[in-house]
């Protein structure tokens, strides 16, 4: 009887240890997939790395998130990445809706806006167009403003297709941004995403 009790006690102890391991690892995996970390800065609906932090010196959680969802990113010295999965009102981007992304030229050696599917891959579409950048976006009459049509249905100009996907997200890349842009990365310098249909 006493032996039976002891075996039960040991089994319970081992079970609790196993539970602690699963709980610890599970919370780790959950936090990685949450996409939230202490090194993040939010500018309107855009998310980027915090001002005084960087991807190679960030906390362990941020490093793990970047490794899983956007590995081999560069540090802020070279590139600033901004991501969003919502429009400017904070509502999740709906691939069945139509959006207009309105912005102005960004003061960087190279900048682009790219659309991705729910797994972070490029979206198959009839015009093989996945992004717009400083060279291929069609500017308005003032030569500095642009409107990009983010939509699953064909548009005549600056169409960034989001066909047949469950979810979509956008990434802005600013390669070698000017010091002025680095210091002035605000809601007013970044593109606005407006739902039109």
């Amino acid at each position, binding site marked *: 009887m006493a032996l039976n009790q002891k075996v039960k006690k040991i089994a319970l102890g081992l079970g609790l240890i196993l539970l*602690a391991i699963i709980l610890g690892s599970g*919370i*780790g995996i959950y*936090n990685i997939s949450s996409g939230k970390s202490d090194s993040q800065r939010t500018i309107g609906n855009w998310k980027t790395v915090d001002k005084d932090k960087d991807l190679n010196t960030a906390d362990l959680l941020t490093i793990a998130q970047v490794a899983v969802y956007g590995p081999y990113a560069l540090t802020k010295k070279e590139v600033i990445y901004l991501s969003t999965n919502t429009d400017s009102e904070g509502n999740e981007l709906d691939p069945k809706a139509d959006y207009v992304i309105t912005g102005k030229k960004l003061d960087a050696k190279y900048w682009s806006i790219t659309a991705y599917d729910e797994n972070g891959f490029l979206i198959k579409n009839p015009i093989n167009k996945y992004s717009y950048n400083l060279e291929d976006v069609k500017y308005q009459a003032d030569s500095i403003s642009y409107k990009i049509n983010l939509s699953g249905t064909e548009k005549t100009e600056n169409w960034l297709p989001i066909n047949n996907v469950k979810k979509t997200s956008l990434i802005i890349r600013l390669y070698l941004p000017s010091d002025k842009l680095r210091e002035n990365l605000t809601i007013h310098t970044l593109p606005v995403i407006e739902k039109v249909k």
Partner: protein
Amino acid sequence: MAAAKPLIKKGIFALALVVIAVTFYYLTIWATPYYVQNKFASKSADYINTPRFGDQPNAENSRVIPLPNPDFLYSTINYDLKENVLKISGIVPDSTYWSISAYQENTTNYFVENEEKVKAKFEYYLAPEGSTSEALKNIPKEKIIYSPTSKGLILFRYLVSKAYPVKELSELQHGVTVEKLAK
């Protein structure tokens, strides 16, 4: 006093459980980047210390590493410096963005140079941190990339642009060579 003993035991055990849970939390988030790098490296296990040249990413050819930039041509070198120091050389395009970057085994970036600093040709020596290899003697410091881990990844980015369409850029991309030097 005797009655308090089992309580203390239970308390210590509960504390141990918390310590185990916290340890495994940090272990998971610490180990994940190494797992990711090993997973990607295993896909090119036959090409260690050898350059691989990617086509311009599209929806069909680029479904392994998330968030590819469709404006770039990428080249990679999965490296292992246990037995060699690597000499990496090639040509830099003059009027479009280009960069060479190095990532340690947890995928974090520890080195990057771009075409604004490196002109015309590049030549780098990749060695493990603290290396005293003969191969590095008489090599200027700025040409040596010291890797914090013996394994990692070198990544080249070539921006497809009006000045450099894919065809021209691809020729430069394929001009990168890797020489294995004795450690």
